[in-house]
């Protein structure tokens, strides 16, 4: 039977090392199958997160051969087998153990976002074309691969000033809900660091749900912020009338 060598990071917050395992290959096998084989036969304490194994829950994110992926959707036959398949934890989050990282920061950011609130007197009647855009954003499975790959977080570690693509997508879903009556633009500008994104589209490239994060969520949100706070005509109006911009 054909074999693959998998090189897995083993360790914790204080460091670790890559460990190689030989794994038999079956047709159609994915990287997560390999990790399960290792748990079942070679290293029962290998820490891995997973749930649905069908690309719907976003639990099994890792970096496979340097690329952020869902391991349940990464086919082993799509990878070169003449060298080890390298599996590392997501780099932008602190390692807990092996491939499991501490993603609790994401849950803290999420709490800052005001929920959906219908406009007063909203009528609960709206059409498919009204919801198409928000539905795209609501496909997000919270795998946090976009957060992992975003250079504002990955290279500059700006976790305190920046919410990351996942939460811009979430806010876009709320803001473009046909009945939503809350504005989150001030929050985006002042607390969630939307301006720090310089639209390199790394997030869009890794999204397993193929959400057009940059084009459909982030850029329209940036436009909303600009419209509300930097529109020169509005600025003059506000100066004269004495109202503030936020």
């Amino acid at each position: 039977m054909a074999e693959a060598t998998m090189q897995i990071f083993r360790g914790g917050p204080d460091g670790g090392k890559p460990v190689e395992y030989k794994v038999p290959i079956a047709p159609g096998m994915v990287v997560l199958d390999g990790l399960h084989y290792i748990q079942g036969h070679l290293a029962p304490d290998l820490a891995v997160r997973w749930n649905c194994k069908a690309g719907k829950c976003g639990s099994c994110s890792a970096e496979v051969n340097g690329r952020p992926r869902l391991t349940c959707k990464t086919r082993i036959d799509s990878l070169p087998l003449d060298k080890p398949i390298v599996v590392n934890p997501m780099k932008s989050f602190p390692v807990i153990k092996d491939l499991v990282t501490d993603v609790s920061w994401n849950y803290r950011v999420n709490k800052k976002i005001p929920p959906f609130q219908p406009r007063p007197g909203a009528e609960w009647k709206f059409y498919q074309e009204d919801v198409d855009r928000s539905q795209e954003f609501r496909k997000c499975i919270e795998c946090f691969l976009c957060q992992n790959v975003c250079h504002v977080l990955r290279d500059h570690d700006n976790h305190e000033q920046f919410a990351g693509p996942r939460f811009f997508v979430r806010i876009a879903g709320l803001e473009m809900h046909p009945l939503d009556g809350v504005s989150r633009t001030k929050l985006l500008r002042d607390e969630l660091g939307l301006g720090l994104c310089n639209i390199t589209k790394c997030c869009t490239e890794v999204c397993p749900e193929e959400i057009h994060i940059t084009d459909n969520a982030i850029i329209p949100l940036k436009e909303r912020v600009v419209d509300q706070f930097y529109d020169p005509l509005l600025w003059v109006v506000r100066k004269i009338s004495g109202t503030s911009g936020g």
Partner: protein
Amino acid sequence: MTEKFETHEQDVLVIGAGGAGLRAAIEALAQGVSVGVVCKSLLGKAHTVMAEGGIAAAMANVDSADNWRTHFRDTMRGGKMLNNWRMAQLHAQEAPDRVRELEQWGALFDRTQDGQILQRAFGGHTFRRLCHVGDRTGLEMIRTLQDRGVQQGFDVYMECTVVRLLKDGPRCAGALAYWREQGRFVLFKAKSVVIATGGIGKAWRITSNSWEYTGDGMALAYEAGAELMDMEFVQFHPTGMVWPPGVQGILVTEAVRGEGGILRNKNGERFMERYDPKRMELSTRDVVARSIYTEVREGRGTEHGGAYLDISHKPAEYVKRKLPSMYHQFKELADVDITKGPMEVGPTCHYMMGGIRVEAETAQSSVPGLFAAGEAAAGLHGSNRLGGNSLSDLLVFGCRAGLAAAKHAREVSSATLDAAQIEQSEREALAPFQRQAGESPYAIHRDLQELMQNLVGIYRNREDVQRALLEIEKFKKRLEVVSVEGSRMFNPGWHLALELKAMLTVAEAVARSALVREESRGAHSRIDFPDLDPVWGTKNNIVRQEGGAMALRQNPISEIPAELKQILAEDK
């Protein structure tokens, strides 16, 4: 001694953060009590996220003739009248309000031409009834509930597994759990506990269920003295993936058939004509699963031992819009373009109709202060669940459980935790670390899955089930000497060793119940008793711990009131 543990105190403790648990927590919070939610995974990853097809609710947005009476009748007929009729009634009556509520909390369902929630056809439902979002309805539901709960302010304890329910005399007083991350124990003190831990599919080899589905909640309740009911009724979903091997069992949504998908065998025959000519592919799941199984057994299966399911006669754009995750799933995992050719599908262990016996109105179990909702509870679905009735079940009875749990919490005084129970459970949980050179929990798990797959699967007979029971006793002995490697830090081997205990408890309950029910009804098919037995149609199997052993008895089903009987007798 309890001071040595990290301790949290809440009025209501909810175990499980899927649809039922979150809905219960939201309702309890709305009553003004404090609520904690404990879950094995991260928030938002529970099994509900995998629900695809939709939420069944008689909203009559598409078929104006639909109403709760028809939904009630469909549910009872689907369950072969073994259902708790009061639960089926409440469910049919309240589901539309629960769906509208989701919409008001921000859920975005697919729309009808006139701007209402769109509904699709599904097996066993007389009318187009399933409110949906493409084929990712569960994700929409869990995200909506999760955001609602977070904003309302429940405390969430993620990646935390309960190992024992603690009792104060007869009543439930809290739970002992461990943090998966550090392996440290943590105590939860509560006046009411709601179990919403889902099902048991991980005891079978071919399953659509995730690692979490190890029957924990049912086993915890059983250990605490609660009754389990209808444990013989395990639903095998007709359509799981069969190829390639790694994806075997992954769910192929019934929405494929709801949207017009056709089943054929290797000879190209539309075989459902022989099994249910009236409803064809949209027959109930028990019937379709047995039909596919029979086609394969009689040599008319596909190359990899399944049936063909074809939706490619529909326009490609339509398929991609209504079944996007199926399109991607097959393209990426099986190299099949479902807009161009058929999928290969076969039965997969999917859902547990049985579970903790509860009161219909309050979702309270036979243990005071212990409630259960969703898949962990029994009653609503009888011997077979209709597609779409699960998500509505979670909402309707999650809500009822949360309400009753909050009310109970306000009425009772604070309970006392018993140090002896805690100490004993801690010792037992850590025992696998003390043992050297014992067996790996993974080996026992593989053998259990193989056993349940082969001997307590879609078709059962006396000899097989008796053999399964003997084997389960051996597995219990093997589990007593299981050992785990490594530290208590995020150690999946250790976690599995603890979950195996629950899996063995529920596996035994399934086998015992399946053995005594000498008839075929819904999802329970006995080769040696192939027909419905009207006598068995009047009683539920009840499992309970008595003197350290599993005891089984039958409960008579209460008389259906005249007005409901009349609904059942009507044809449309």
